[in-house]
């Protein structure tokens, strides 16, 4: 199978709803420092079920687009000081096509209460069902050997013998 397109809504630095893609067999993501490249990788990781701690955020709420000023010296926390109401929800959806041509739309939403909601082709499912379908496509979030976050690549080669055993065990 393959990832065809991503749709994000109010995810990290991506304001509003945006379609990103299509992705080919070899797609490169480019842009200046701070543009939002790693945030795109965070969006892909998020929709696959990766926890927020791995996405440079302490909690899910921090993944929602926030355009306003925080702790600016002297300024209060008054939420109204932004020029627009801040979104309280956000989602990422991934359009995926299986080897036999079936279209699967994986969608993970951050609700206004700060929890996750999972949908496949529009139908709400549990996290276990969602993850089960991903595993059928050989997308093993537990092992995560196919996601290399910024700055992590060298550590893969110098990990301890113990860690390497664990990594191989998770994919076996």
């Amino acid at each position: 199978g393959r990832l065809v397109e991503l749709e994000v809504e109010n995810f990290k630095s991506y304001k509003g709803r945006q379609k990103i893609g299509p992705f080919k067999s070899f797609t490169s993501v480019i842009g200046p420092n701070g543009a939002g490249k790693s945030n795109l990788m965070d969006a892909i990781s998020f929709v696959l079920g990766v926890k927020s701690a791995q996405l440079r955020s302490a909690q899910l709420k921090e993944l929602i687009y926030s355009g306003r000023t925080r702790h600016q010296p002297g300024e209060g926390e008054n939420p109204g000081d932004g020029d627009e109401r801040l979104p309280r929800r956000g989602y990422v959806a991934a359009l995926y096509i299986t080897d036999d041509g079936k279209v699967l739309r994986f969608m993970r939403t951050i609700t206004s209460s700060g929890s996750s909601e999972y949908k496949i082709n529009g139908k709400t499912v549990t996290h276990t069902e969602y993850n089960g379908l991903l595993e059928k496509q050989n997308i093993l979030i537990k092992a995560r050997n196919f996601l290399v976050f910024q700055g992590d690549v060298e550590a893969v080669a110098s990990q301890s013998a113990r860690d390497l055993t664990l990594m191989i065990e998770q994919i076996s």
Partner: protein
Amino acid sequence: RYDLFHRAYHHISDKIDQIYKDLTKSATFPLGGTAYLSLENNEDPYLHGIKYHAMPPMKRFRDMEQLSGGEKTVAALALLFAIHSFHPSPFFVLDEVDAALDNTNVAKVANYIRENCGDNFQFIVISLKQSLYEKAQSLVGIYREQSINSSQTLTIDLEQYPE
């Protein structure tokens, strides 16, 4: 469980050397380097660890810690691709893995990706280096739209333009 682990270990161990050679061979060193896995304790790999060894072309053997930044990156990619070959996930997302690589190694990695990508092995590679992203089939360009304080994207299909 034990069997599964052994199967995975032997599969990866068989593949790692060739993948490392593909990533390190050049006109000067057509054979490339050498890489292999070894078990710290042959009886029961579960309780002990698996050690990874990689030697760049024409270099003496050293501990992984003695390798340079760029040499470690290449060794890491070989390991990741070897592990992938056992239980292939449909795609890879790599975030600036080329940061420590010199231009020669960037080109080798780009060629490896180009040769190995396909319908069932998709690569999404974040990079700042032209010698890498110019080899892709398509680009997703991300920029910051200052007026609305948001990231925006545009997609460019490189296959439309002849090399």
